[in-house]
């Protein structure tokens, strides 16, 4: 993986994903190693994403790398009208690797073509966010002991959720059974379902969350946003149907875990937080180890 960019999850093979997860496991045991001393990681956030940026910066800092960059386009030369090409070429002179988040789809792929240094995509519009997918896979493997043959339930906005789409596609490589819980208006799009069908995997669709919980190994929650509905009355009808509370987890499997890409608003009731099945904060922490594994693999240290 040395010197390669990671733009889409498909840029790496299944064997390479597994390798990243294995390296991340080592970092979880020993996250503070100064093996990137003398290296510079640029974090270019053309739109703010505090969580993702801090996770990358934390990953780099624990390994002894210096972090440079900007936190939103308004505080950078982009505001003065500089092209993406020029920003990327300039920053390449100052850094060994670029981590970028940008509101336009395809921006990261373009940057990787322009930059002489490798680029990690930290989200390009509604397109890809591969490090989120890897940390989700890490969290699933860690809590279930395997990635194979699991029952994965996705809840909420399955139509627009980039995180959901990438994870569904990734899990198609691991013989998953999918349980898809969403309002009618926000069902998983057919171009994603196609991947499930091509692999001849099983999937079930529900509008009632309670029906899907007992068979789940993983309950992946997402937020249902009001602005996604063409008809506000439809939103009012369903807005409380996809909120998870502690009582609903009574019939869940022993090892089942609740995941969420965060930030959460109200879709997981706070009474779930103390349930041992709640895993979303550890999931965020796992992001640091996965990003350490990526930075060190791409920089050729691991």
């Amino acid at each position, binding site marked *: 993986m040395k010197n390669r960019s990671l733009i*889409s999850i498909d840029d790496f093979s299944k064997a390479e994903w597994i390798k990243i997860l294995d390296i991340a496991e080592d970092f979880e045991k020993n996250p503070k190693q100064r093996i990137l001393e003398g290296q510079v990681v640029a974090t270019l956030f053309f739109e703010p994403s505090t969580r993702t940026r801090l996770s990358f910066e934390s990953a780099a800092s624990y390994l002894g790398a210096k972090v440079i960059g900007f936190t939103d386009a308004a505080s950078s030369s982009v505001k003065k009208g500089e*092209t*993406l*090409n020029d920003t990327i070429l300039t920053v390449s002179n100052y850094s060994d690797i670029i981590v970028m988040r*940008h*509101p*336009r*789809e*395809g*921006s990261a*792929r*373009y940057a990787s073509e322009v930059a002489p240094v490798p680029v990690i995509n930290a989200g*390009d*519009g*509604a*397109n*890809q966010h591969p490090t989120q997918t890897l940390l989700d896979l890490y969290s699933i493997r860690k809590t279930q002991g395997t990635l194979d043959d699991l029952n994965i339930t996705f809840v909420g906005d399955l139509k627009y959720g980039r995180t959901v789409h990438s994870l569904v596609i990734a899990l198609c490589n691991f013989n998953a059974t999918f349980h898809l819980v969403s309002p009618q208006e926000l069902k998983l799009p057919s171009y994603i379902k196609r991947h499930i069908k091509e692999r001849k995997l099983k999937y079930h669709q529900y509008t009632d969350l309670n029906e899907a919980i007992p068979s789940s190994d993983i309950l992946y929650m997402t937020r249902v946003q009001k602005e996604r509905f063409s008809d506000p009355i439809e939103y009012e009808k369903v807005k409380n149907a996809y909120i998870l509370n502690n009582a609903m987890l009574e019939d869940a499997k022993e090892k089942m875990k609740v995941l969420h890409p965060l930030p959460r608003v109200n879709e997981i009731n706070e009474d779930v937080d103390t349930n041992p099945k709640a895993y979303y904060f550890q999931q965020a922490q796992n992001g640091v180890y996965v990003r350490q594994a990526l930075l060190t693999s791409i920089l050729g240290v691991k």
Partner: protein
Amino acid sequence: MSEVRKELKVSAIENGTVIDHIPANVVFQVMKILKLDEIDRPVLVGTNLGSKKFGKKGIIKVNNKFFESEEINKIALIAPKATLIVIKDFEVVYKKQVELPKSIKHFVKCVNPNCITNYENIDTKFEVHFTDENEVKLHCRYCEKFTAQGNMTFI
């Protein structure tokens, strides 16, 4: 006899390229894609000509111009049955139906309004795919979205 009448409609050329069997409604689009609207050599254009096989067809004859196959294959996107004929000394030296290339560069616009290629000065790049109905759809190398045949605009 009918051959003679055709020659009368659009006269023969000595050296150059003839593009035949273009659907009549896309003749001017083909002109634009091949940048024949900017060329300084004689170009003969016929459209709404009768064709037994194709109904109404168009034909373009360009004097002293020979196309690279990659260049001409672009028109397969809108005129998949078009025939390319190369003429030297009034003789046909080469005749072939256009073929859709595997990838398309810098002349179709990505339909996704949020694609980076619509904001920065970037050549678009697409892989050619087909729908279940065998219609062409283009997969953008950058935003990874598909542009369907009906949504294609040419740069």
